[in-house]
């Protein structure tokens, strides 16, 4: 009897030891960002076909994702807003970027087609502050010589729900406009000085679509799929850029991930002639000390596989995959910072 029990314990210890190295989890759980949900779902489906390991991801919003990972009810959280180092430290979390995308201003002005209108950051901020109220304002006319601008009130449209898209957009306006920074600021939801709020990308695109003289902002994929009249932007280097995967990638390539503590980097207003100014990333959050190392390893394996094999899928959904050099940085962070409860590293496989 005693002998049998000892054997059972020994077997359990051995099983635990093995599972620390080799993942045996059948399901990874995650929660958070709705922005990253389509690509995570696509990767997960492909990953399940390959390995049999499923991902259960609840797209409940970044705020909810942060709460869930703090409460340890999921293996990872996903947030469009990077957490500050102090907050990460307090909750024992590490974060890294998983996917990037762009936010695009869209307009509905009679006679103006996609790409015909050009704006710079200061003018965009003034429109959203309510200091520019007419389409034929001198500031807009100066950027658009030869474009016929109507004498029409600008209907400003913004997101009414808290959103990573709003965080990127307001971060950009804060970067380029001191007035915006001091009176409104950047967050997933802000106190909008003017305009009407639509729920979700579809709400914004609908208001913008049916209200003449409107301006709004949506994720790039959304603007493309709905054939909305997007705007060309003047970037930090003074160059006119179109929203496209290439210009998002240019912004990402110029980003200095290596020197950003905890990858705490918002990609808006990046330098470089080809950089799209409103680009951002979704961040994955996991605990530094893992009570269930097997689950953590399974999650990391999924991200590793997705970084290596998911680029085409990401581009098909108009996302920007992380560049290889950044992936190396990320995986080094996994190896250095994430440990099981007894101090063993959770991530050992090198690519």
């Amino acid at each position: 009897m005693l002998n049998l029990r000892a054997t059972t314990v020994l077997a359990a210890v051995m099983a635990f030891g093995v599972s620390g190295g080799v993942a045996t989890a059948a399901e990874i759980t995650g929660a958070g960002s709705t922005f990253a949900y389509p690509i995570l779902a696509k990767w997960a489906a492909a990953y399940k076909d390959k390995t049999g390991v499923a991902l259960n991801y609840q797209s409940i919003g970044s705020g909810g994702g942060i709460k869930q990972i703090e409460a340890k009810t999921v293996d990872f959280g996903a947030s469009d807003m990077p957490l500050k180092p102090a907050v990460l430290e307090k909750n024992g979390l590490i974060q890294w970027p998983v996917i990037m995308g762009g936010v695009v201003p869209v307009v509905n002005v009679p006679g103006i087609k996609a790409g015909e209108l050009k704006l710079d950051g200061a003018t965009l901020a003034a429109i959203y502050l309510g200091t520019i109220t007419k389409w034929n304002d001198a500031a807009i006319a100066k950027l658009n010589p030869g474009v016929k601008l109507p004498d029409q009130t600008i209907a400003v449209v913004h997101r009414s729900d808290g959103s990573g898209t709003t965080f990127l957009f307001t971060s950009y306006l804060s970067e380029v406009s001191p007035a915006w920074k001091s009176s409104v600021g950047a967050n997933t939801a802000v106190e909008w000085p003017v305009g009407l709020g639509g729920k979700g990308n579809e709400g914004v695109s609908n208001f913008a679509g049916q209200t003449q003289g409107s301006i709004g902002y949506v994720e790039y994929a959304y603007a493309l799929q709905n054939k909305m009249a997007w705007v060309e932007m003047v970037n930090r280097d003074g160059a006119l850029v179109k929203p496209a995967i290439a210009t998002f990638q240019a912004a990402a390539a110029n980003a200095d991930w290596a020197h950003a503590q905890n990858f705490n980097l918002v990609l808006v207003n990046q330098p470089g002639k080809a950089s799209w100014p409103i680009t951002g990333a979704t961040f994955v959050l996991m605990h530094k000390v893992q009570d269930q190392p097997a689950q953590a390893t399974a999650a990391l394996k999924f991200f590793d596989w997705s970084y290596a094999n998911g680029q085409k899928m990401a581009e098909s959904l108009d996302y920007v995959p992380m560049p290889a050099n950044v992936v190396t940085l990320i995986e080094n962070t996994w190896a250095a910072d994430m440990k099981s409860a007894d101090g063993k590293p959770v991530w050992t496989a090198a690519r």
Partner: protein
Amino acid sequence: MDVIERPLDTAAKRVPSGLGLDAPFRWLTRGAALLVVAALGAMLAVLVIWSWPALSRFGPAFIVSGHWNPVTEVFGASAPIAGTLITSAIAMAVGAPMAVGIAIFLNELCPYRLRGPLGVAIELLAAVPSIIYGMWGLFVVAPLFANHVYPVLITWLGPLPVVGQLFQGPPFGIGMLTAGLILAVMVLPFIASVSRQVLASVPAVLREAAYGLGATKWEVARHVLIPHARRGLIGGMMLGLGRALGETMAVTFVIGNAHRISASLLQPGTTISATLANEFTEASGDIYLSSLVALGLILSGVTFLVLLGARYMLARADRKMPT
């Protein structure tokens, strides 16, 4: 056959076989009733506890202030409270008379053959999910209003003194008025259905006596039916108001979701339930979340006050005009 042969009085004296179940049955029903009270109490307790951080931090300013700023974490609820009250008021002002009119028409004036189909059609309005009303409002009503209704209101009513303030600004097609009118359609079937029932319960003798005295249909409706049924009519309106105050999805689609109080009914605003639906998922920070829960507490309070006020008015009406 032996049932008939048995004398009747033995059957009456027999101890009912279900007597043993009586006590458990009483406890079961009492338990169900108490559970509802307990659930209500527990809900209120949670609302108060969760909203306490925000309420203690902002104090009365939470209700008075119109600033709702997630960046600086300063929250004031006056815009959503005002929006809730204004949209519900529009809904009742438009919906309630229309619903009572429909009920009178269906019960008194409508050709008998049409009563069934028309009644079912009105009641089917209640079966439409609120998200459908929202989409209908956003895709159909809002563009229609933006192009044809709001511009007319702005041109004709906007320049008027005092009243004109309610109809000014650019014609977005979404705002307080649209939300209120959608709500009016949504509360219509509730009020109409209750009104039909209470009007039908008016004794036929009263009606016949009035017609016998030579009263017209209008006079019968105005002086006999409505006074006799007013208690039930107000009850139906309270049901409708309850729905209007708490309605979420349909309003969120068409109100414009802006944390501002405008004098104009044509401008975007927000309601308590729309704010909760919009911001709960992404509310980061404890004070933000607590402020949203406090909004929920206020909505419960507003609904409670409305019901209390309606009951008080009902009681007063009863004393003035005994039936």
